[in-house]
């Protein structure tokens, strides 16, 4: 009796304890950086301006191709501040005004902004409008003042503006009446109050406007006709002379407009360059007295002497980048040249008027994987002996940014990582015997000390120093960044392909770059454009001595029917194993679910003529492929005419190409959407490698539903053509969204739903048997998320346990997609607050763990939302049984819990994609979000039910055991003594 009455409350206590284990999955502030890392980038630098402030920290302001403006520390290359402008707001020019404002011109010259140099706060914003679109030019004359106000001269939208540097007020503006006048340069000769605007009208007319910089008054307008026309590029050689090329690219024209008089001077290139062949192009530069042209791949520097006389000063065969001129004293201007020569780069700084003397001549060893230098920016400093020192900022082919000073690389930034195109994950090598295990464990005392510190931390007894020690201990843990596989599968390599055509391997532990590889250039293909990344060879666990490899698919040139290039890269070493230049284009890549005996995955490449090519080209692969020949189906989407087509293989290629790995395709079906009412905006399929644990879903009432799990389902969303624009451009009545589920083998539409008054953009994710998609509801003027779940009805009668036991079920019967599937679908919609940039779903090793949606919001954060919130079975008043099953009462909008932002207080600036990779541990999934920034973390959607949490205190466990043992001994002693006393009595 008594025993029982004691036990019941105890058990209840235990139960209560387990159920109350921290209900929210989230992070404590001191856990930041333990499992996650965040890297900030800016992208390929377009323009750089050095801050010439005498005091304070030296900075360089850059604008990039990712549309970022940033202030970087010149000493270490760190970001002080950074702003990512909108995608329609492309930066045209940057400069520094008054030494304390960063001026940016963007949006095709219509927005001029000023930012505070120290902290990046926007100071003012000015909108410049004009009659028509034109080249945009930004000019900040250093000593031009109107009423003590420094002036910014902007030419944009065919109008010249003078803007106050203090408040962005437009002081004056000037239109140019000439029809078809195209401005090329705006020149402000230093020390004068004049502005020259030069350009071309029609194709053969050179125009020059002389304008008073104080009030915008037109002083002079001259034009001259040159009969054979111009190429649209000018090089400025002095404030009153420009150099242009004629339309054939063979005659150099020196145009001077001194005192408003235009005079031409023609010099055929063949006169000054002996063996010139082919048309020349002008390399834009602004070095006084010197300009550069490029013929084929030879860069030629030409000096202008006196009245239009030209002289070749140097011919360079290597890839060369030239900087702009930098005034180093009143009369001297310096510029820099960077040349690529094998494993080195040569830096030269020269004075503009004296070609033969070098101010600086250095050679620096450069990593081959950085490619050739693309851009160079020069800055000087005064050494202690009053001579000039130079620092050069160079932008390499792989988009990295390096600062060179005194013959060494001071810092470098891997800004290619700001533009990731594709990501895949790879395993790390298995740990070899005798590698670094001992190093990790150091000694028992250290280990105990660490745990005592941790214990102090949990008991809140730690002093601030202790807390700091604990934090650094946790962050440093060498386990994390070890170059070997771990038991839980947390350590992996993320292989990323960047827009520059470079592959990087990032370690998931701390995000460091393990190796990088610039895609090999061959004679056939000078500039491969990286497209996709596939896992080529993933050795099975019994062939661990082999290295896995990835397949990089690139295209030779910008057009979509350019021939493809395949590269195979070893993921352990980053070495390119092989490279194939194809003779066909690559439009679509289909990784097949088959591998050959060396674990190479079979890939089918579809070219622009609808031929399918099999890779690898081995007879073994062909044998495997032949067996599966009739089971291969794929689809193609033709966006422009709203057609989705299904394809299958027909026979060997007929025609001129006699290749046994080439196959003809046939069209099986096509779904044609009415082009006047529907336009395809999104198509999503399931991830190929997704694991589904069970097909059955047990309901609260002991009922079973079978998920319709097919790899051949395609989700398609179409919108009304009118509604494919921006929000606000269409009324609810004339916009709708139609969602389809299409079987890609038969082309059968399994489900179709219309959302009236809805608009794109549509972001969708497909997993298991459900699709979640996000769109805009124009009637409520809110974003909405919908879920569609699809269930298989043909198996619904397998509910009887006895049938299952006796084997009288149809679960093992073959399913053919050609028979009409009996499916039922359920769907539901909810409001969602934010705009969405990307949407993904967690994936785990076996698919047992419940799923979370990862939603990249417009604020560049990633929100984890439990799939249970998007369950079509939610109702306003769930029954008791449904509640037990975990069904949440229906609400009209999805909750946003700040603690479930996986990026916590960080932003993944310019978020573009979210990738999830399963860890070996079932509960955990690895999440990688990329944009301009990179962010990586581990997530456990149902908490880490299969391992102890990171903050589990082993010391407390030990102490408890010791205490218990001690208690046993003490009580044993006590009871012995008591027994003895009893016996004496």
């Amino acid at each position, binding site marked *: *009796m*008594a*025993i*029982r009455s*004691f*036990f019941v409350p*105890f*058990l209840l*206590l235990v139960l209560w304890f387990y159920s109350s284990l921290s209900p*929210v999955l*989230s*992070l*404590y*502030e*001191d856990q930041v950086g333990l499992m996650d890392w965040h890297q900030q980038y800016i992208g390929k630098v377009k323009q750089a301006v050095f801050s010439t402030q005498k005091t304070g920290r030296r900075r360089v302001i850059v604008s990039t191709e990712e549309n970022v403006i940033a202030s970087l520390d010149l000493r270490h290359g760190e970001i002080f501040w950074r702003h*990512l402008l*909108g995608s*329609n*707001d492309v930066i045209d020019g940057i400069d520094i005004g008054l030494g304390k404002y960063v001026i940016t011109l963007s949006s095709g010259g*219509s927005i001029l*902004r000023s930012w*505070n140099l120290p*902290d*990046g*706060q*926007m*100071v*003012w*914003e000015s*909108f410049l*409008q004009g009659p028509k679109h034109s080249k945009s030019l930004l000019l900040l004359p250093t000593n031009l003042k109107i009423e003590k106000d420094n002036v910014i001269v902007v030419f944009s939208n065919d109008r010249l503006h003078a803007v106050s540097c203090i408040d962005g007020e437009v002081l004056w503006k000037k239109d140019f009446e000439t029809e078809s006048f195209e401005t090329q340069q705006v020149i402000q000769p230093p020390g004068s109050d004049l502005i020259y605007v030069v350009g071309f009208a029609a194709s053969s007319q050179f125009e020059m406007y002389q304008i008073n910089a104080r009030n915008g008054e037109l002083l002079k307008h001259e034009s001259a006709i040159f009969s054979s026309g111009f190429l649209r590029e000018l090089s400025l050689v002095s404030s009153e002379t420009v150099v242009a090329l004629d339309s054939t690219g063979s005659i150099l024209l020196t145009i001077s407009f001194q005192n408003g008089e235009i005079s031409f001077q023609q010099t055929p290139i063949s006169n000054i360059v002996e063996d010139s062949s082919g048309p020349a192009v002008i390399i834009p530069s602004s070095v006084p007295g010197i300009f550069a042209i490029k013929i084929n791949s030879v860069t030629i520097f030409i000096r202008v002497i006196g009245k239009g006389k030209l002289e070749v000063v140097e011919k360079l065969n290597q890839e060369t980048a030239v900087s702009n001129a930098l005034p180093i004293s009143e009369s001297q201007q310096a510029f820099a040249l960077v040349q690529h020569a094998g494993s080195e780069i040569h830096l030269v700084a020269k004075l503009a008027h004296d070609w033969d003397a070098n101010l600086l001549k250095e050679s620096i060893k450069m990593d081959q994987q950085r490619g050739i230098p693309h851009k160079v920016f020069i800055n000087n400093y005064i050494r202690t002996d009053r001579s000039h020192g130079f620092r050069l900022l160079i932008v390499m082919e792989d988009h990295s940014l390096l600062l060179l000073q005194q013959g060494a690389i001071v810092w470098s930034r891997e800004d290619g990582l700001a533009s990731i195109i594709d990501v895949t994950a790879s395993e790390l090598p298995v740990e070899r015997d005798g590698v670094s295990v001992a190093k990790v464990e150091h000694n028992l005392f250290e280990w105990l000390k660490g745990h005592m510190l941790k214990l102090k931390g*949990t008991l*809140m007894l730690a002093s601030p120093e202790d807390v700091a020690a604990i934090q650094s201990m946790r962050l440093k843990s060498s386990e994390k960044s070890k170059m070997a596989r771990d038991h839980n599968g947390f350590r992996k390599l993320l292989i990323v392909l960047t827009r520059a055509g470079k592959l990087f391997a990032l370690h998931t532990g701390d995000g460091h770059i393990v190796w990088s590889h610039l895609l090999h250039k061959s004679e056939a293909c000078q500039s491969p454009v990286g497209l996709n990344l596939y896992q080529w060879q993933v050795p099975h666990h019994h062939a661990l001595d082999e290295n896995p490899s990835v397949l990089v698919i690139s295209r030779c040139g910008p057009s979509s029917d350019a021939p493809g290039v395949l590269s195979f890269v070893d993921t352990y070493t980053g070495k390119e194993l092989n490279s194939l230049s194809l003779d066909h284009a690559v439009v679509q890549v289909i990784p097949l679910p088959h591998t050959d005996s060396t674990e190479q995955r079979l890939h089918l490449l579809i070219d622009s003529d609808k031929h399918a090519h099999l890779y690898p080209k081995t007879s073994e692969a062909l044998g495997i492929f032949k067996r599966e020949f009739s089971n291969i189906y794929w689809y193609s989407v033709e966006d422009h005419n709203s057609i989705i087509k299904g394809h299958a293989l027909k026979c060997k290629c007929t025609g001129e190409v006699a290749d046994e790995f080439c196959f003809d395709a046939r069209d099986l079906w096509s779904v044609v959407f009415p082009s006047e009412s529907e336009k395809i905006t999104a198509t999503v399929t399931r991830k190929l490698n997704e694991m589904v644990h069970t097909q059955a879903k047990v309901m609260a009432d002991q009922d079973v539903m079978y998920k319709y799990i097919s790899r051949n389902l395609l989700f398609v969303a179409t919108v009304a053509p009118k509604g494919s624009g*921006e*929000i*606000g*451009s*269409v009324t609810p009545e004339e916009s709708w969204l139609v969602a389809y589920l299409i079987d890609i083998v038969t082309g059968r539409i399994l489900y179709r739903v219309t959302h009236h008054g809805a608009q794109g953009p549509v972001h969708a994710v497909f997993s298991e048997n459900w699709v979640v998609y996000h769109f*805009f509801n124009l009637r*409520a*003027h*809110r*974003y909405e998320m919908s879920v569609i779940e699809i269930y298989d009805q043909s198996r619904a009668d397998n509910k009887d346990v006895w049938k299952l036991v006796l084997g009288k079920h149809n679960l093992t019967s073959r399913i053919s997609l050609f028979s009409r599937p009996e499916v039922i679908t359920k769907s539901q919609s909810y409001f969602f*607050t*934010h*705009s969405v940039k990307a949407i993904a779903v967690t994936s785990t090793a076996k698919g047992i763990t419940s799923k979370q949606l990862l939603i990249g*919001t*417009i*604020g*560049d*954060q990633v929100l984890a939302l439990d799939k249970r919130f998007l369950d079509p079975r939610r109702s306003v008043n769930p029954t008791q049984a449904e509640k037990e099953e975990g069904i949440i009462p229906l609400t009209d909008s999805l909750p*946003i819990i*700040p*603690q479930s*932002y996986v990026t*916590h*207080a960080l932003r993944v600036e310019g978020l573009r994609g979210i990738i999830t990779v399963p860890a070996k541990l079932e509960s955990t999934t690895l999440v990688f979000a990329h944009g301009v920034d990179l962010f990586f973390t581990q997530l456990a959607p149902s908490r880490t039910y299969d391992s102890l949490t990171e903050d589990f205190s082993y010391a407390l*466990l030990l102490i*408890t055991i010791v205490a218990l043992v001690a*208690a046993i001994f003490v009580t044993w002693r006590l009871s012995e003594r008591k027994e003895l006393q009893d016996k004496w009595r």
Partner: protein
Amino acid sequence: MASIARLLLLVLLSTALTVSSGSGYGYTINGRVKIPQGLGTAGLVLPGKMSNIKVILNGGQIVSYLRPDGYFSFQNIPAGTHLIEVAAIGYFFSPVRVDVSARNPGKVQAALTENRRGLSELVLEPLRDEKYYEIREPFSIMNVVKSPMGLMVGFMLVVVFLMPKLVENMDPEEMRRAQEEMRNQGVPSLASLLPGGGRN
């Protein structure tokens, strides 16, 4: 920076023209973002924080930054119903629908989409703070007791010190009967100890 924040709070604008017909092709939306001091707990309104707030029109069509006084503007906006979102780390802003009407330019019509509250002028304030981290509970003896180890120790103590007391308080006759029963049964099985497993 602090002075800017103060300025932001002190400047009280009676009228803010929200929508005006701009010169050129479209209309202009002017508005302002205001972060009340009371809302942000100490340390949340960091200097430089204002500079990172973005105002986004129609899901990314135009992105604008704030001036030091919190004002922002969008130019060349066509007539129609638009959506403005504010992206600020640490605050939850409701998106705002703004109607730009072609018929009577200058007419203000804005409403928060989250709670359908209308705005008389386009002043956007956060609905609430967002705290991204769990707060660690301070050390308390209850936490230790509640931990599995604490429960184990507690159970041991109870068994060691309370059980003998319970046994003592039993009626001696009942005790004898129980002992007899035990003897008859032999070794007591675990089932009889568990609740519901015993017979009485």
